[in-house]
C-alpha cells in the first residue's frame, strides 16, 4: 500500500491518448467506504460474467458459437448506421466536404475540360 505523501511531490500526469493508471492516481488511496463497496459490487458482476463465459467456453457438450450479446449489439451498430442517422452540424459538414463538394468539384473540372477541348458551350 503506497504512502500518499510519497506520491504527492512526484506529479504523475496522464499522457496524450493514455489515461493515468489507477495505482498512480493519488485520489485512489483516499476513497470512501461507499465507493469501495460499489467497486466491489462491479467487480463481482464482472467476475460472474467471466465465469459464465468460461463455463460456456469449456463446456464439453458445446458445439456451436457462444452467443455474445455485446458482440451482437456491436455488429448491429456497425451495420445499421443509416437508419439511425441524424443530421447535425458535424454530419452535414462531413457530407458536404466528402460527398457533395468533391462531386461538384470534379463535375466542374470535367465540364471545363470538355468546353476547353471542344470549344463548346456546355449544351
Amino acid at each position, binding site marked *: 500500500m503506497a504512502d500518499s505523501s510519497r506520491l504527492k511531490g512526484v506529479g504523475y500526469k496522464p499522457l496524450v491518448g493514455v489515461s493515468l493508471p489507477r495505482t498512480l492516481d493519488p485520489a485512489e488511496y483516499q476513497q470512501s467506504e461507499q465507493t469501495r463497496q460499489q467497486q466491489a459490487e462491479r467487480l463481482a458482476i464482472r467476475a460472474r460474467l467471466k465465469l459464465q463465459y468460461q463455463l460456456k*467456453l469449456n463446456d464439453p457438450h*458445446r*458445439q*456451436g*458459437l*457462444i452467443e455474445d450479446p455485446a*458482440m451482437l449489439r*456491436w*455488429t448491429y451498430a*456497425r*451495420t445499421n448506421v*443509416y437508419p439511425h442517422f441524424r443530421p447535425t452540424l458535424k454530419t452535414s459538414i462531413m457530407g458536404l466536404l*466528402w*460527398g457533395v463538394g*468533391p*462531386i461538384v468539384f*470534379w*463535375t466542374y*473540372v*470535367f*465540364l471545363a*475540360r*470538355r468546353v476547353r477541348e471542344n470549344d463548346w458551350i*456546355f*449544351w
Partner: protein
Amino acid sequence: MLKIIVPTMMLIPSTCLTATKNTWLSPTAYSAVIIILGMLVLNPGDTLMNTTGLLLGSDQISTPLLMLSCWLLPLMFMASQSSMSHNPAQQKRLFITALALLQLALMLVFMALDLMLFYTTFEATLIPTLMVIARWGSQTERLGAGLYFLLYTITSSMPLLIALLWVYNMKGTASITLLQLLPPMTLTFWTNTLLWTSLMLAFLVKIPIYGLHLWLPKAHVEAPIAGSMVLAAILLKLGGYGLLRITNLLTEQTTSSYILPLAVALWGALMTGMVCLRQTDLKSLIAYSSVSHMGLMTSSILTHNQLAPSGSMIMMVAHGLTSSMLFCLANINYERTHSRTLLLTQGVQLTAPAMTSWWLLACLTNMALPPTINFIGELTLMVSLFDWADITIFLTGLSAFITSFYTLHMFSSTQQGTLPTHIITMSPTQTREHLLMTLHSAPSIALIFMPQLMYCQ
C-alpha cells in the same frame, strides 16, 4: 437461341421429378451441359448480330455475359449444397427452381434484341432474386434487404419504361439492331437531358453508382451464397450491359448530362474503397469492393470512348468471377464459424491452409494484379478515362491503390492473426469446395491467354 432457353426451362420439371438422392447432382450436371450448349451461340467474330429472328440475338457485348451466367449456374448449385442440406427436399427443389427461373430471365435479357423484351426480362430477374434473398437468407435483416433491393430497382426503372416507350413512339421501332442505324432526333436541351437521365437511371442504380448503392451491401450480405454469387457476378452486370446498349443506341444524341454520373461514379469508386477499410463484416467488405470496381466501369462507359466497351466487357467477366469466388470463400468461412465478423474469423490459415491459397488467388485477382484479366480490364478502363480527361488519373490511381490496400487487409484479417479461442470445431475443407474454387479461377486464368475473346472491336 432456343437451344439454351428451352433446356433452362426444362431444368425446372426435371428437378422436380428427379429422385431425392439426386436433388443437387442432377441440376448441376444438367446446367453444366447447358454451358456447352451456350458456347454454340458464342460470337467472338466481327459480325454485328448473330440472330435467328427479330427477338433474340447475341452480340460481342452480350455473349461474354451470357457465358458467365451459364457458367455460374452449376457453381451456384454446388455452393448451396451444404447450406441447404437441412431443408426438406421440396424446398431444395423450390430453391433450384427459383435459380433456374432467374437464369432463364438472365438469358433472355442478354439475348434480347427488342427493347420491350429487354425491359420485361430485366424486371423479371428481380422476382426470383427477391425470393432467394427473402426466403433463404440467414438473418432477420433479409426482409429489409429484399425490400431495398426491389424498390430501388423498380423505382428507378419506371423512367426507363417511359423513355423506352417514348423512343419507340418517336422512332417507330423498338429493335436494338434497327435503332442503331436510325438518325438521331433533334431535341431541345431539357428533353434530351431528361431522355438520357431516365434511360441511364435504372442501369446506374443497378450497377450501382455511388449515391444509389444502398441496396447493394444489404442485399449481398443477407442473401444466401447462391444469391450473393448471382447478384455480384451477373445482376450488377445487367446494369453495365444496359448502359452499354443505351450509349450505343444514343451515341449521336449529344449531351453533357453524362458528366455528373461520371464524376459521381469515379468519386464513389474512391469513397467505397475507403469505406471497405472500415468494414467489420466480411461480406459487406466484398460488397463494397464490388461497388468500387463497378464505379470505375461506369465512369468509363459514360465517356463513350472507343476502348470503353472492351474494357468493361473484360472487367465485367473478371469481376464476376472474382467477386463470386470471394463470396464462396466467405461462405466457406461462414459455414464453419457461423459469423461474418472479421475479428471472429481470423487465423484460418492454421486450420485450412489449402483454402489460404484460394484466398490468396482471389485477393490477388481482386487487386487487379498483372497478368490477370482484372488487370487488363482495369487498365483498359483507366486508359479510356485518361484519354477522355487526363486529370482522372488521380482518382483512378488512388482508387487502384485503395483497392490493393483493402484487399490485402481482407486477406490478412481472415487468414492471419490469432485463431479465436471459442471456435472448437472447424470441419475440414471438402472436395466440393475446392472444385468450386477451381471452376471459378480456371476461366479467369485461361482468359489471360486469350483476352481477345472478350474484346469488342
